[in-house]
C-alpha cells in the first residue's frame, strides 16, 4: 500500500514513555462515591433524563434517552441511587445538565444492551460515540446515505502523551479487528485499512498477524502530528481530498477510531453498553497509568487513584496537550470522549507571553489545512468576523500546529476556536440573505 502523506504538520515531543509500557488497569468502583453523568457527552442534542431523584439504578441501565437524530443514549455507569439531577462542571461549556449517582456496594452486574436485528440500532442502544475525542454519535456515522468503499481505522494516536489507544491495540487486537469487521459487513464495505503510526512497532506487529485472516491492509503511518486528523488520514492513506465543508463520506470513506471499533464489538458480541473507557493519566502524577474508568468519575478521584499530584500542579488538561481543554475545576467528570488527563507543573509549561507576529510564515508552513493563520490572527484580534469567514476559518481543525510552531507564541488556534461561534453567525446571516 503506498503512503501519500499530507501537507504541513509538526513533530512535537511525544512523551509517551511514562505510560506506553503500562497495561490497562481497571479503576474499581468505590462504594459511596458520587458519579456525575453529564447528559451531553456527545455532539448534538443532550439526552433526555429518564430517572428521578432517589431512584435506584443498575449499572448499564438507560438513564438518558437520545433526543433527536444526532444524539446518544446515556447509561448508568454504576449501580446505586440517583441523588440529584443538577448541573455539572464542563470543560468547554462551563456547566451542563447531569445526573449524580451514589455508588452502592453491589457492583457485579451490568445490564445488557438490547441487541437488535439492525446493526445501527444496537450501536444506538449501546450509546456509542466516536471515542477519538470528537464524540460524534456512531449510529449516525454508520448510516451513510451514500456508497462507502473504504473503512479506515484510525490507530494513529498522534497526540503527545496519550497511550490509551496504543494499549488497546496491543491488548485487544483481535476484538478491534472483529469490531471493524462487523462494521464492514453491516455496511457492505469492500476495503478495510488500518493506519498505525510507525512509532508503535509492537502494535503494527500485533495487527500484522491478523492481516491475512481478516483481509485488511495495514498502513504504517509517518510519525507526524496531526496524522490522526480525519482529513489528514484520508489524504495520507488514500490520496483523496475531502472537499471544503464536507464529510469523509463525500469521498466514500468512513473513519473510525480503534476504541470505537472495540466498543462496537463489545456492544454486539458482549451486549455491553458504553459506560467506561480507557484514559491515560500522566504528567505530574505520582503513578502515571492507563486506566479503565467509569464515565462520571470526577477527575480528582482519578488523580487520587494515581497517587495524587507530583509537586504543585499548575494546569490540568483533559484530552491531549494539542487539542485538549485546560480544566478550571477538578470536579469535572470523566466523559465518553476523555482520552487523557494530563497534569503540568509550572516548570513543565512553556512561556506563554505573546509577542508581535514577525511574519515568518511558519504557521502557514505547518497548517495541515492550508490556511493562513497569521492573517486570520489579525482578524481575531480586531474581532473582524466577516473577514475571518472569508479566510475560511471554519476549515480550521483546531489542531494547534500553528500555535505550536509560532516563535512569537501567538495564541493562534485558541483564537480561531473561540471566534468560530461569531463567524457562524456571520455565515448564517449570509445564508439567510442569499435565500431572501
Amino acid at each position, binding site marked *: 500500500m503506498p503512503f501519500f502523506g499530507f501537507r504541513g504538520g509538526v513533530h512535537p515531543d511525544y512523551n509517551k514513555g511514562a505510560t506506553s509500557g503500562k497495561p490497562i488497569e481497571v479503576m474499581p468502583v468505590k462504594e459511596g462515591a458520587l458519579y456525575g453523568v453529564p447528559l451531553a457527552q456527545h455532539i448534538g442534542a443532550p439526552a433526555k433524563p429518564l430517572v428521578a431523584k432517589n431512584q435506584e439504578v443498575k449499572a448499564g441501565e438507560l438513564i438518558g434517552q437520545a433526543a433527536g437524530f444526532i444524539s446518544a443514549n446515556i447509561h448508568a455507569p454504576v449501580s446505586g441511587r440517583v441523588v440529584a439531577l443538577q448541573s455539572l462542571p464542563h470543560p468547554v461549556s*462551563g456547566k451542563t445538565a447531569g445526573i449524580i449517582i451514589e455508588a452502592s456496594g453491589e457492583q457485579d452486574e451490568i445490564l445488557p444492551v438490547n441487541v437488535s436485528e439492525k446493526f445501527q440500532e444496537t450501536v444506538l442502544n449501546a450509546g456509542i460515540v466516536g471515542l477519538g475525542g470528537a464524540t460524534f454519535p456512531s449510529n449516525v456515522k454508520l448510516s451513510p446515505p451514500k456508497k462507502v468503499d473504504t473503512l479506515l481505522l484510525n490507530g494513529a494516536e498522534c497526540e503527545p502523551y496519550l497511550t490509551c489507544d496504543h494499549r488497546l491495540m496491543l491488548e485487544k487486537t483481535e476484538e478491534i479487528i472483529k469490531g471493524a469487521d462487523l462494521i464492514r459487513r453491516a455496511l457492505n464495505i469492500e476495503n478495510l485499512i488500518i493506519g498505525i503510526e510507525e512509532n508503535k512497532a509492537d502494535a503494527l506487529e500485533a495487527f500484522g498477524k491478523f492481516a491475512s485472516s481478516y483481509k485488511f491492509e495495514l498502513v504504517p503511518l509517518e510519525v507526524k502530528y496531526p496524522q490522526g486528523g480525519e482529513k489528514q488520514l484520508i489524504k495520507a492513506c488514500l490520496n483523496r481530498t475531502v472537499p471544503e465543508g464536507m464529510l469523509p463520506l463525500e469521498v466514500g470513506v468512513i473513519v473510525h477510531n480503534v476504541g470505537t471499533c472495540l466498543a462496537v464489538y463489545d456492544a454486539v458480541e458482549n451486549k455491553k453498553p458504553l459506560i467506561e473507557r480507557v484514559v491515560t493519566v500522566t504528567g505530574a502524577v505520582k503513578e502515571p497509568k492507563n486506566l479503565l474508568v467509569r464515565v462520571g468519575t470526577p477527575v480528582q478521584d482519578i488523580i487520587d487513584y494515581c497517587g495524587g499530584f507530583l509537586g504543585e500542579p499548575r494546569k490540568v488538561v483533559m484530552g491531549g496537550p494539542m487539542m485538549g481543554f485546560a480544566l*478550571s475545576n477538578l470536579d469535572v467528570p470523566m466523559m465518553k470522549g476523555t482520552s487523557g488527563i494530563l497534569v503540568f507543573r509550572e516548570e513543565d509549561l512553556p512561556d506563554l507571553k505573546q509577542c508581535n507576529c514577525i511574519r515568518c510564515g511558519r504557521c502557514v508552513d505547518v497548517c495541515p489545512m492550508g490556511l493562513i493563520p497569521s492573517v486570520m490572527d489579525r482578524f481575531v484580534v480586531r474581532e473582524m468576523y466577516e473577514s475571518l469567514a472569508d479566510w475560511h476559518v471554519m476549515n480550521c481543525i483546531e489542531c494547534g500546529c500553528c500555535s505550536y510552531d509560532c516563535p512569537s507564541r501567538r495564541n493562534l488556534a485558541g483564537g480561531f476556536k473561540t471566534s468560530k*461561534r461569531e463567524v457562524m453567525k456571520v455565515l448564517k446571516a449570509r445564508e439567510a440573505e442569499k435565500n431572501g
Partner: protein
Amino acid sequence: MTAAILTMLSTGFVAGLGLMIASKKFHVEKDPRIEQVGNLLPAANCGGCGFPGCAALAESIVQGKSAPNACPVLGAESAKEIAALLGLELGSNVKKVARVRCKGGRTEAPEKYDYYGPKDCHSVNMLAGGNKLCSYGCLGEGSCVKACGFDAMYMDENRLPVIIEEKCTSCGMCVKACPRSIITIIEQDKPFVVACMSKDKGGDVKKACSVGCIGCKLCAKNCPVTAIQVDNFLAVIDPDICINCGKCEEVCPTKAIKKF
C-alpha cells in the same frame, strides 16, 4: 503626432457629448429634502439606527418610514429641526444613555482560571463559560469599548467598562457587542439601576461576587411605588414607574443597586 492629438480630442468630445445627453435624458428627480435632512444628521455612519449609513436613514425619514428622531445619536435640537423641515410633530425627547449592569470587577468577582487568549469578550465567554465564577457578569475584556464609535467608553483599573454619559449617543453598538447583554440603554434621568444580571440563587451569588443581587426583595418591599420586580432571584427596576427616591439603593444589603 498631430493626427494622434486630434483623434484624442475628438474621441473626448464625442464621449463628453454622449454623457451630457445621457445625464439630461436619464435625469432622476430626487427629493431635495433628502439632502437637507442628510445634512442635519451627524454623518457618523455608525449604524445605530439600523440603516447602512446616515444617507439611507435620511431617505427613510423623508419617505415617512422612520421617525424624525430615529437617529439615536442626534441631539434634541437637530431632531426638532428635521421635524420642522418636514412639517411633523415631535414627542418628548429625553436623552438616553447606555448603562453597565454589573459591578463585579476584579476585586469583587473572583476568577476561576487564568486567561491567555485574544482580548475579546466573545472568546473568553466560549471557554468554560467565561473566566469568572459568576456566569452572568462582565468579562472585562472590553469588546464593548472597542465597538463604541464615539470614544464614550473606557475600561477602569478594576476591569469594568465606564460610560462617559456626555459623549454617549445611545447608538447601541456596545449593547450588540456584549456577549452577556450587560449593557442597556435607558433614559438619562433615571439614575437608579440594579447593576447585576445574575439569576443564580443568593448563596451562589455570594460565592461568585460580593456586590451581586441576591434576590432578598428588600428593595421591592421598600419601594414606595412598587417599581421593582424580583424574578429568578434578580431585582429589576421599571424606569417608567420609578420616581428616583433612592430608597432601594439605601436598603440593598450588597449594594447591587447603583446610582449612576
